[in-house]
Each structure stands twice: as structure tokens, then as C-alpha cells.
């Protein structure tokens, strides 16, 4: 659609001709996507369109059958999930994935260690208590997501909305270059949804960060997105600016329904 633009500048994330089948089902076919640096790119589409599958291909959870995925000019395919994360990609999952047996604070420390020490480093004789600097960063982040008062809580026993916020905080504290968010506000109270939108906006202003976000909540999508790709049955239907998407008849029919 925007041929000239694409040629002119390479996006930080380049997905080219990606295909993925599950048995007889074509979950992704010929997906092309380019996400420009420091933008928020939303991916929307009906259930089962392949949105999560696409994210899975980006973080190494799935390997596409064909096609290529470049992050910052380097291919992510064939790399292990932790290597991809070390390249600067963090992901929030559709169902919260946290360290349930650990406290909130410990949940926050782990991504910080990963950032500081790389994929592995045996600090067997240093105590966690003595990591003052990391702790204060973790606390600051928790403050941002309004969870500081819960820092000693056992994370499995939090309500689901809280788990989501924690997971997002864990990704954000890593200071990723590309943040992948799979329905970050699902199940969040309205107030928190608004807080989350503000937080993400604020972070985007403060530092260089690119985000790809999957959401069914159009309020979130339209508040944040710079560009939107609509995925349907494994192929991108349209890619455009939010305003244009809102009015797009095909999108309204296939996806938005009365809501828009």
C-alpha cells in the first residue's frame, strides 16, 4: 500500500513472506509487516486470525515454515527465545506468564538480572539483598504500575488484573527496544486500562521504544497506535493509520461490528 515509504526506510522489525501451518490449517500465509522504529504498531483482527501465532514467530516460540523475520537487520529465526530477548525483544503474553512461586519483587529482579548479566551468569555468592541499584529500579517500575504496595506478595495469589500488570512491568523494566504486547489490558479494570495507556505513552515519550500491540479493546488501540495492521485468516487485510482503519468498511464488517 505504501510502497514508496517501505523502500525508503527499513523498519526495526521486518516480517517478510511468513507462512505457518498447523496440520491442515494455514495460520499465517504470506504475512508481510514492517514496524518502524519508535512507533506503536497495533495488530488487530478476528479471533483465530493468527495474531498470537505471529508474535510467537517473533519470539522464537514457533518457527515459521517459510519467510524471514529481521529485527534491526538481524534474523531472529533459529535463535532461542532467550537469545531473541537478549536482542531487545520482550513480550507480554495473552494469559499472564509470571513466576507464581516468587514474590512480586523477585519477579521484577529476574528480568533486571537478565538485562545486566546476559543469558546466564552464576552469582552464587552475592546476596539478592545487596543488589541495591537493581532493587531501586524495580521499585521505581512497580511504582509506575501502581503495585509498589504489593511488592512482598506471593505473585500467584494476586488477582488476574494484577498479574497482567506485573507481567507488563517485568517486560518494561528490561528497557526493551521492541515490546510485544498480546492483549495487555484484557481483564483490566477500566481505570487500570487508562493508567496503562498513560504509562505506555509516557514510556514511549521518555525512551526509544517500539511497540507491537495486539488488542481487542479499540479504545486502547486507537489511543496508542500509530499504525494498525488488520489480520484476517492469517493474512494482512489492510495496513493503515488508525483514522483510516476506523472507517474501513471491510474492517467494520469482519471485525469491529457495532462497536466502532
Amino acid at each position: 500500500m505504501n510502497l514508496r515509504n517501505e523502500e525508503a526506510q527499513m523498519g526495526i522489525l521486518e516480517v517478510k513472506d511468513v507462512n505457518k501451518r498447523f496440520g491442515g490449517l494455514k495460520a499465517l500465509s504470506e504475512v508481510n509487516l514492517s514496524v518502524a522504529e519508535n512507533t506503536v504498531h497495533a495488530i488487530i483482527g478476528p479471533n483465530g486470525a493468527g495474531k498470537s501465532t505471529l508474535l510467537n514467530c517473533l519470539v522464537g516460540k514457533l518457527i515459521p515454515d517459510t519467510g524471514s523475520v529481521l529485527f534491526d537487520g538481524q534474523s531472529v529465526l533459529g535463535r532461542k527465545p532467550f537469545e531473541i530477548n537478549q536482542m531487545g525483544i520482550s513480550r507480554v503474553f495473552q494469559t499472564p506468564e509470571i513466576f507464581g512461586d516468587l514474590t512480586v519483587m523477585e519477579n521484577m529482579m529476574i528480568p533486571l538480572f537478565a538485562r545486566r548479566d546476559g543469558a546466564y551468569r552464576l552469582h552464587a555468592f552475592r546476596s539478592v539483598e545487596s543488589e541495591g541499584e537493581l532493587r531501586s529500579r524495580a521499585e521505581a517500575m512497580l511504582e509506575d504500575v501502581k503495585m509498589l504496595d504489593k511488592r512482598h506478595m506471593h505473585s500467584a495469589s494476586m488477582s488476574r488484573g494484577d498479574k497482567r500488570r506485573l507481567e507488563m512491568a517485568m517486560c518494561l523494566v528490561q528497557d526493551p527496544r521492541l515490546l510485544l504486547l498480546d492483549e495487555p489490558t484484557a481483564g483490566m479494570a477500566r481505570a487500570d486500562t487508562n493508567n496503562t495507556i498513560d504509562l505506555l505513552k509516557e514510556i514511549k515519550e521518555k525512551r526509544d521504544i517500539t511497540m507491537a500491540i495486539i488488542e481487542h479493546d479499540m479504545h486502547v488501540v486507537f489511543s496508542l497506535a500509530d499504525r494498525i495492521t488488520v489480520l484476517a485468516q492469517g493474512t494482512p487485510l489492510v495496513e493503515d493509520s488508525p483514522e483510516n482503519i476506523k472507517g474501513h468498511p471491510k474492517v467494520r464488517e469482519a471485525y469491529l461490528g457495532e462497536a466502532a
Partner: protein
Amino acid sequence: MNVRPDFSKNANMAETAPAFLSVWDMHSYYGESYIVQGINFNVHEGEIVALLGRNGAGKTTTLRSIARLNSPQVQRGEIWLDHKPLHTMSSYEAATAGLGLVPEDRRIIPGLTVEENLQLAQIAPPIGWSIERLYDLFPRLGERRKQEGVTLSGGEQQMLAIARALARDIKVLLLDEPYEGLAPVIVDEIEKTLRHIKEQGMTTILVEQNAVRALQLADRAIILDTGSIVFDGTAAEVLGNEELRAEYLAI
């Protein structure tokens, strides 16, 4: 027959219909932590009640308590469903008594295909919609019937969870955030379905973060805050009450 509690002091109770589901002075704990702190409410037959509140307010805990799951532990209180004392039952007995819960994390059973997940719901009586009819409602599931349930997309799983509840002939449907992760068109679909089954006499408690949508559908609304009921009234009242909306629902 047990003596039924007297709710006449509760102003918000519809005088006309007798309560179908009553929750009386229910206190629930997760281990030592005291979550639901003595709540009372009634639901009438054929009603849709929206249960609203912030994250961590105790909505899920309330539904799980009613469904008689092992955790939380209901340490005090009574729950009556159509003259049957649910509080003396275990969860499968409550389910055979006519309760259906769609849990918030969907709880699709790993290792089972879509169809097996549905068949499983039809092992214990009473049996509700036929599997074919459910596929008509959610064609997506029909297409994926041989796929393992947990590999479905998030939204598809949600559909399966709802279909699974309908596969049983239940009297009360407890929905914990059923719209979560669903595309807007599908939400419309489900809303229609809920209206449809309401017409057939189903009683529903709906927990939902999208308060506006929930209130459009619901007859009544109950608002929870830190384990206590702060409001119990009609949906229209909530929509009309600026303060309430701002304070508890942020809308």
C-alpha cells in the same frame, strides 16, 4: 425444609419474584487471607445481574465461592439455589443442581480435543444444548473440533468455555469476564446469545470489566469493593449515577 433467610430488609430486592439464587452473609478465605467479607444478594429467575468492581475486588472469589470450589473456603454463610442449599454441596453437586461457571482463565482441559471438551460436559446430567447446536452457535469450534482445545486461539478458547457451560442444562450461568479477548463482532454475537438464553429463562451473573457493555445487557448490577457490596440496584441506576461510576468503575 430449611428455613430460608429473610431478605426483606434489602431494599433492592424485587418484591414480586421470589429469589432464585440467594447468597447470604458469605465469608470467603484463601487460606488466611479474608477476601469476601460477608456479602448478601439475591438473583431472580431469568435475570441477568452484572457483578462489577475493580481488579482484586473479589468478583472471581465470589463466583468461585458460589460454585463451591475448594478454594476459596467459604467459612460462613449460606447459598441457596432454587430451594437447594448449595453451601452444603461440593462443586460437582452444585453443578448437577444447575450451576454453570465459565471461569476467568477459561480452563480448557489440556489433552482433550475441542469435541472431547464438549463431550465431557455432557457426561453428568442434566444435558443441555446438543453439540451440533453449539457448533451452529460457534462455527469456529465446529471447524476446529478435532484440534486440541488448548491450542485454540485465545478467543476461540473463550468460545469453547462458554459452549461448554451451555452444553449442560443449567439454571444459573456464572460468567467470569466472558468477553475478554474476544473480537468486538464476537462479543456482539455472545451478547445476542445471552439475551436469547435469558429469554428461555436462564439466570445469569456476569462479571465484566467492560462495565458499559455489561450494564447494557444486565437487569441489575452489584458493585463489589474489597470484598463487600457497595451497591446493589438496577443497571439503569448505575448508568445514571455519576459518582458511583467514577468511584468504582472509572467510566
